[in-house]
């Protein structure tokens, strides 16, 4: 069986963060060159680091990419998409 590559690039991290609800779904499509403003990117990393119990640096550091490479559940960490009204 093919082995999933560990997360080691910004693009892979962007796809990961979008897949699990930290970035808008648009970021998940590697073809689209969706531009993320810096604050959105930093917030997404902080959010993931906080959720995963890592030091909250806002930087895509090795610790963070190591955790992104762990086997995990495919359900998003943040459910209740930002565009639905019920996200109070």
């Amino acid at each position, binding site marked *: 069986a093919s082995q999933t590559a560990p997360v080691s690039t910004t693009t892979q991290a962007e796809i990961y963060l979008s897949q699990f609800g930290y970035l808008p779904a648009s970021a998940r499509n590697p073809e689209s060159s969706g531009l993320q403003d810096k604050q959105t990117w930093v917030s997404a990393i902080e959010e993931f680091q906080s959720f995963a*119990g890592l030091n909250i640096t806002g930087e895509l550091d090795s610790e963070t990419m190591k955790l992104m490479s762990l086997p995990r559940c495919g359900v998003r960490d943040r459910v209740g998409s930002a565009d639905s009204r019920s996200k109070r």
Partner: protein
Amino acid sequence: YALQGSRWRVKALTYKISKYPKRLKRADVDAEIGRAFAVWSLDTDLTFTRKTSGPVHIEIKFVEGEHGDGDAFDGQGGTLAHAFFPVFGGDAHFDDAELWTIGSSRGTNLFQVAAHEFGHSLGLSHSDQSSALMAPFYRGYEPVFKLDDDDKAAIQSLYGRKTTNTNQYTPTFNSPPSTQRPTSFTPPRTPLDDSICKDSKIDTIFNSAHGDTYAFKGDKFYKLTTDAVEEGYPQLISKGWPGLPSNIDAAFTYKNGKTYFFKGTQYWRYMGSQMDGVYPKEISEGFTGIPDHLDAAMVWGGNGKIYFFKGSKFWRFDPAKRPPVKASYPKPISNWEGVPNNLDAALKYTNGYTYFFKGDKYYRFHDARFAVDTATPPFPRPTAHWWFGCKNTPSSTAVGDH
């Protein structure tokens, strides 16, 4: 823990395995899947019955790559499995490219991953407690499995505590199926009595031990859905909580499942809607170090401690400590960056966020940054629109909002 927002209306659930993994014996898979479901029966009245055909609540499949739900699996490692919340059907899919194993440190343990996925099938989202079964990361084979308190609190907030004594460890077969899927969500409506839309300032807001959200105002209370007032509300507080007065100052539900109400110099304790002992008591008696005539109270998601707010100050109360309030309190509310003084209410909501209410507006707090959250539309936001589902009220307070 965090809840997705939907749950099953029934507790007797059925399931079937419509596609088995390549490398394991069917009988072994049946046993492991039954054990994984039984994890959620230990602390609730949920029961799970395996069927071999026909309609069921939860369908289980072992599949590879693209498998028809738009969420393709990715080969060995990475994503191991995913499941759908009750409102989306509750089914669970497992990546059959994984080396699923039973009782071994090799490969990926089927029981642990299945128990996690069935948490989603029942309405649980991921937890940020790394020790919880509902944490998103696979922690490797754990020969001795134990459900974390966080998971127990989560499942009981949806389905209540266990009242029957049937220990459902041996899955039962083919009892008459109730194929009722969760009723579709009725669209939120503006509350029948829409006075709350004209004046959305509240006295207090809290979650019950079952995860229901209630807002108090005067002698009435409103039960809230995920974005509006539930039909048939408001109702009288004296009906919902016999013995409780109107015009409550503050309220919260602690992890012991009890709800505490505060008014003036006194407080009341309830288990569900029943007064839990002889009340009222003096706040000074039960919450030494906490002042009277409070503005707001909540259990903060960041550390599970109880916070009280009054005027420009706040106190932290830890029942497990002596004294429960450190001498360094009170502290200024300005420590909670962006949160105003003289609050009306505070709440840790079922989506895991902390909220503060003042006047007709509310603030969402970013626990990790310890500051009011930044979002669009910005905070503070109008409470009427986002919490009570009021139509023709603005969704933003930003001046010159485009």
